[in-house]
């Protein structure tokens, strides 16, 4: 009788524990989803800000064309080439804003600010996304989770690796691609 009661108690506790683990996993997957959406929004905002700046006529024509091209390529890139295209846009942006005379003028200042803020936003969103991915991947690695698969068939989330260093920031600061 005592054994039956103990077994029952054990099963109930195990049930609670597993349900707790499943809830945690579910929350982690949700966190990755919203972080990914935030990253997409940040990348789109940056591309739009760059196009706005290139259309303002503040940059030299050749430079503006190259930058606009990089921004459009980043916007249109498919999933498998997106990281490269976005990194290329980061590099092009630094090239345009660091290595030549920085554009100035009252018409340009708010657009330039928006580009810099948007570039910072890409870095923030990417760190938060990759942080969520690494928490989720760690939780999925556990033996119990691999055995009982409370995550169901949800795909293992992937890191988004790109060069997100904003123009005018030093390399070691902000830990761009440190991992």
């Amino acid at each position: 009788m005592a054994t039956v009661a103990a077994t029952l108690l054990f099963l109930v506790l195990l049930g609670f524990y597993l349900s707790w683990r499943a809830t945690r996993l579910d929350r982690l997957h949700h966190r990755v989803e919203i972080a990914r959406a935030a990253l997409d929004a940040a990348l789109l905002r940056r591309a739009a800000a760059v196009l706005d700046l290139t259309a303002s006529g503040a940059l030299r024509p050749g430079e503006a064309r190259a930058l606009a091209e990089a921004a459009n390529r980043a916007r249109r890139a498919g999933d498998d080439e997106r990281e490269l295209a976005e990194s290329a846009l980061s590099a092009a942006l630094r090239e345009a804003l660091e290595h030549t005379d920085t554009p100035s003028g009252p018409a340009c200042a708010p657009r330039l600010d928006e580009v810099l803020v948007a570039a910072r936003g890409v870095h923030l969103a990417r760190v938060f996304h990759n942080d969520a991915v690494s928490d989720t991947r760690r939780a999925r690695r556990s033996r119990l989770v691999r055995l009982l698969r409370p995550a169901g068939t949800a795909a293992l989330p992937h890191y988004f690796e790109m060069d997100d260093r904003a123009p005018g920031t030093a390399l070691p600061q902000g830990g761009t691609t440190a991992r």
Partner: protein
Amino acid sequence: MTAPIRVGIVCPYSWDVPGGVQQHAGDLAEALIAMGHQVSVLAPVGDGDHERPPYLVSAGRPVPVPYNGSVARISFGPRIAARVRRWITEGAFDILHIHEPAAPSVSLLACWAADGPIVATFHTSNPRSRAMAATSTALRAALEKINARVAVSEAARRTLVEHVGGDAVLIPNGVSVRRFAHAEPLPGWPGPGGSIGFLGRLDEPRKGLGVLLAAFARLAPQRPGLRLLVAGPGTADLSEVPERVRERVVLLGRLDDADKIRAYHSTDVFCAPNLGGESFGIVLTEAMSAGAAIVASDIPAFDAVLDGGRAGTLFRVGDPTHLAEQTAALLDDPQRRSRLSRAAHAAVSAYDWDTVAADIAHVYETVLTSTGYDRKGIAGVRLDNGPLSTTLLRRGERS
């Protein structure tokens, strides 16, 4: 993008005791309010008749607990947990910003109790923080809920990555430069014989007052008018200082905010002799805002804030002889002092709260733009009702 956000800030340490995290939470709250956001700060509040800002909500009375090499005054336990839950329910926040979530305190309680958009700031940079390492597995479930992690320094970020994993963005502490920029020196200071300043807890070894006193004992006999201004709570151990120069160590005790600002303007050289465990050094940036000529220990956090020695002189940490040499050189060179003072004031603008709070608001927006919490009509931060099974049980009870 700039719609007002309802922010709930959680501060683990007692509000009425001065400290970097409390200062950070208060200044951030004020900067965010100035930007048009709505802010409520939850923190333990002791008895004292200190002035309470309107945004402060008490989480209960604090108890002293040894944590991370110093004594932290925090609140913990089921009654406090109930208060935290009530605060979260009544606040109807869009986002929670929890400071030092790994500390066993209202911060951890808030992390457990809340579900929804959570930002957390990590301040600790102790490489061997036993409390953090020992409990990191137990903490994981709480820390997993955090959507956005912020570290106040590269050292704090490294501590987080090593002990908890994941990653964090770097947003330094802010300093209210304007508040510190101008003030009259305290009466009678700096005085004709020159003076050195120190600000911080006197009885906490890692603040390094002992190193400064040893250096002063070397300097004072050769410089008859030299005085040492020491401000801060606690009792100092002056046994290392020879009796005949002891009277030139002036203990001012704990200063109110206005006098603290005046103290930064009262000395020829300001000294930050911290031994480590300091993630950022708010005292240092305050002194920089006041345009003080600074000599500081070369721990990584200070080296970074002082721009590798360009905005202040660095000495080998824990070495009173080197400190005495560097201080003597500064005392004898008024031109170099004013050069350092200008450099310090210029370097500190990157840490001004206006800049820093805008960056933190950007973090909130990044988390909120895509959470879908508001779009789906599930407003912001809710109470965490635990695993699905217990929720089902509770539903069963109700029907």
